[in-house]
């Protein structure tokens, strides 16, 4: 049954995926900017900046991690010279995910963008198992949902977080 559903879904999605081409709205048509505003022609258009970055199918339609890792962009890490730029390269597994694959949270890509204190201790306690994260809270903008669904890849991308099959854990 599950296999049939997957087959059906992938048949439905196949043409959409093949035909996918990133397209950005112009500022004048984005529903936010005033098309008659005096500064509108000075502002950079999303298509100009984003079309040269590695593509993605969601969010800004940019794979921001790839853009960073490949050195296509090199955003500043700190404003003040004395600010310590902290990186951490440990993974955390969230295993209580029901029938979904286990969530692997990689610290490294997160700390390439964020500082420890952006998440700790306000959003997440620095102790494995001490954070009662649920998808409902994430959908309401708590925990991971502070960024995922707002500025980082959205919650439609289940498998990017639920990435470790239980069979691989040997459980």
């Amino acid at each position: 049954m599950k296999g049939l559903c997957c087959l059906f879904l992938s048949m439905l999605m196949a043409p959409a995926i093949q035909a996918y081409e990133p397209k950005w709205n112009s500022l004048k048509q984005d529903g936010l900017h005033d098309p008659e505003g005096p500064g509108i022609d000075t502002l950079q258009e999303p298509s100009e900046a984003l079309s040269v970055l590695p593509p993605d199918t969601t969010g800004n339609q940019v794979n921001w991690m790839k853009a960073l890792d490949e050195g296509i962009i090199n955003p500043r890490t700190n404003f003040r010279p004395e600010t310590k730029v902290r990186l951490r390269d440990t993974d955390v597994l969230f295993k209580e995910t029901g029938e979904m694959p286990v969530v692997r949270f990689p610290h490294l890509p997160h700390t390439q963008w964020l500082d420890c204190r952006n998440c700790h201790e306000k959003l997440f306690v620095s102790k494995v198992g001490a954070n009662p994260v649920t998808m409902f809270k994430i959908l309401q903008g708590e925990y991971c949902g502070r960024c995922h669904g707002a500025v980082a890849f959205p919650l439609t991308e289940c498998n990017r977080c639920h990435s470790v099959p239980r069979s691989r854990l040997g459980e």
Partner: protein
Amino acid sequence: MRIGLSGWIMGGVLLSCAAVPALAEYGDVVLNRRAEAEGMPPVIFPHWFHRIRFRCKVCHSELGFEMRAGANDVTMVEIIEGKFCGLCHNNEIAWGPENCELCHSGRPGLEPGIRGGNATAGPGRW
């Protein structure tokens, strides 16, 4: 296949989001708690433009912007004094605060908050 109650609710939430047409760029923020009340058009802050140039931590850690739309009560006086946006928008790193129309570029009547395009407001690829 058991989807379960939580799965149906989750699906419902995602589908209801999908019905909202999304035009704004993912992560655009409308600032209008004060602007229009004080006679200026709303401010549109584009995350995409800024993250090409600065990592999140620069503004959300060093500058002190909370990572929650509505949690930052920024005034023009503070910006002119070099706080918040004014740390860069000072004519040295980015345009200065006298270029009103470049930030105050929104349509009249916009509600403040974070907006999204594409898949933010639903599964654009489904």
